[in-house]
């Protein structure tokens, strides 16, 4: 390379784009680090318990993960803009009871779905509007929503589950499509859509831009407030999808649903490489992050680790996974 440069010295333009394979290599490791960790975890679980690596169990894990996974995709958008969404868990409850009350027969399937998605998106819209127009930290805006939405869910349902849902509605939770459970299909489809949206559209690029430098984004002509509102709305919309499927899965709308889901969703995003300081994150990363949490829960259950120890181990393993991952990043 030294000779190369000596020659290049003479050249008037040395701004050529060189491909450097060593860098490519370490970039691969850092880029797919969390995926490798995930594979390592799968391998470990497969060794530790023979019941882990079976078709049904794997399907099982992915289905369990799909709800949180879809929520986490929206959260990823939000975190990339330097925001946070603490309201997801409570919004799930609110959507759940309201949609369920319209899915008790007499209504066509369209009504509860529209209501569910609408309410999800609406809460997001409110979150975004309060955070941007009110200029208050998203942490507080969504914390308020977290509290208020739970209250509304309880109020609406009087604290009780709303059951007797129509069969067509229940399909969203337990039905199969193309040989796969519907939630898994949705997880993949929404993952693909979100990934394309984030990576290949103006909307996605603007999302990164705002998280990278809000001031600069404004000067580049991005309407920051409007964009942020849309991001929160999209997150709410995805939460609505997860809530509908979850409601269908347990065949009841429940006001106590989704407690602490927001933390799991944020954790999935962060484990998957999304940075809370903004501007960094990917959807596949988040999906892997969610799967890591899912594999962990499933594996520990399969091995019948006591609940107390499960919690201790879960804490340690999540930290370790991110630790290994960030060490990889450091090397590059």
């Amino acid at each position: 390379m030294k000779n190369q440069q000596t020659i290049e010295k003479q050249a008037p333009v040395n701004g050529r784009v060189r491909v450097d394979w060593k860098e490519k290599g370490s970039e691969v490791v850092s880029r797919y680090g969390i995926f490798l960790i995930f594979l390592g975890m799968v391998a470990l679980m497969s060794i530790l318990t023979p019941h882990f690596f079976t078709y049904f169990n794997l399907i099982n894990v992915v289905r369990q993960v799909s709800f949180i996974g879809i929520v986490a995709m929206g959260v990823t958008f939000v975190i990339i803009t330097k925001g946070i969404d603490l309201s997801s868990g409570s919004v799930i409850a609110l959507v759940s009871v309201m949609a369920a009350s319209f899915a008790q027969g007499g209504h066509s399937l369209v009504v509860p779905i529209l209501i569910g998605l609408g309410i999800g998106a609406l809460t997001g819209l409110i979150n975004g509007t309060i955070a941007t127009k009110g200029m208050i930290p998203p942490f507080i805006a969504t914390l308020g929503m977290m509290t208020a939405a739970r209250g509304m869910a309880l109020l609406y349902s009087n604290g009780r589950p709303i059951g007797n849902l129509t069969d067509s509605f229940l399909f969203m939770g337990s039905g199969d499509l193309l040989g796969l459970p519907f939630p898994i299909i949705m997880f993949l489809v929404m993952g693909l859509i979100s990934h394309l949206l984030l990576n290949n559209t103006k909307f996605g690029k603007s999302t990164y831009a705002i998280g990278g430098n809000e001031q600069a984004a404004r000067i580049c002509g991005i309407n920051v407030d409007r964009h942020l509102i849309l991001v929160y709305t999209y997150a709410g919309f995805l939460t609505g999808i997860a809530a509908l499927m979850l409601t269908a899965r347990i065949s009841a709308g429940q006001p106590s649903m989704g407690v602490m889901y927001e933390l799991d969703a944020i954790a999935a995003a962060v484990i998957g490489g999304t940075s809370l300081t903004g501007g960094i994150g990917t959807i596949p990363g988040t999906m892997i992050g969610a799967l890591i949490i899912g594999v962990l829960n499933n594996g520990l259950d399969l091995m019948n680790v006591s609940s107390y120890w499960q919690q201790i181990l879960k804490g340690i393993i999540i930290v370790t996974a991110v630790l290994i991952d960030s060490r990889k990043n450091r090397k590059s």
Partner: protein
Amino acid sequence: SDGSNADRKVVVGAAMPVFDDKWLSYLYDAMKDGAKDKNVDLKMVDAKNDSSKQLSQVEKFATEGVDVIVVCPVDTAAVKPMVNVAKQANIPIVIVNRIPPKDVMKDVDSYVGSESIKGGIIQMEEVAKILNNKGNVAIMTGQLGHEAQVKRTVGNKEVIQKHPDMQIILEGTAKWQRAEGIQLMENWLQSGKKIDAVVANNDEMAIGAIKALKEAGKLDETVVAGVDGTPDALKYVKSGDLDVSVFQDPVGQGKGAIDTAVKLAKGEKLKDKMVWIPYELITKRNVQEFEERWDVYNKNKSN
């Protein structure tokens, strides 16, 4: 009302553990109904499962000067300071639903309810009977550290210990939630273990387990048991999906608590300090009876 109480309204301060629990919501309704019947001013507050918050609420009732305090404790281990507060303020105190230890009970004016541990015992005894005293049991517990989780599980285990051919092969928490119940059961089903019975700390989790079992086609060969016996759970008993539930009478406890509280407030002598509203076993055989009870209650309520 009947006009016999021309004197001023009795004020009851009720410190309740948490408001987003299904069974408790029936208890609260019953207390409210009871309060309406007796023309009582009921102040009901939510401790959000936080003992220290509950203690503060009791203190506040004391400084406000309510006539009587009703507590459904977040944790019976933390009842002592609440009782002390009430005693110091000279306000009678009634404990509902969760029974404090004996040394605290001596200062409590009345207890209305049952013993949590009994719920677990009744539940597991019936499961043992169905299983002919042998088999593999999975215990699905509520939110770890919650009073009802601890006591009911202890009750379950006491029974198991009496049956050498029964063993607990799996134990995990589903945090009282149906969704978590499905997930835990799904994972257990993959664990390759033969599960003869799933015993859950409440009906919601049991219903979750039922969903997962049904999907796996294993519901018929597995006994499922819950606790609570709320109207929606009874449907599952009726259909035969939920083999066992244990009825904890929220109406009896709620109205009983208000009755007792009013008596204490008016200085009436109690016939019995302990107002037992026992747990009752529900199976498909007697489920009708409980459904009727709910019907009667709901009818009265709407009148």
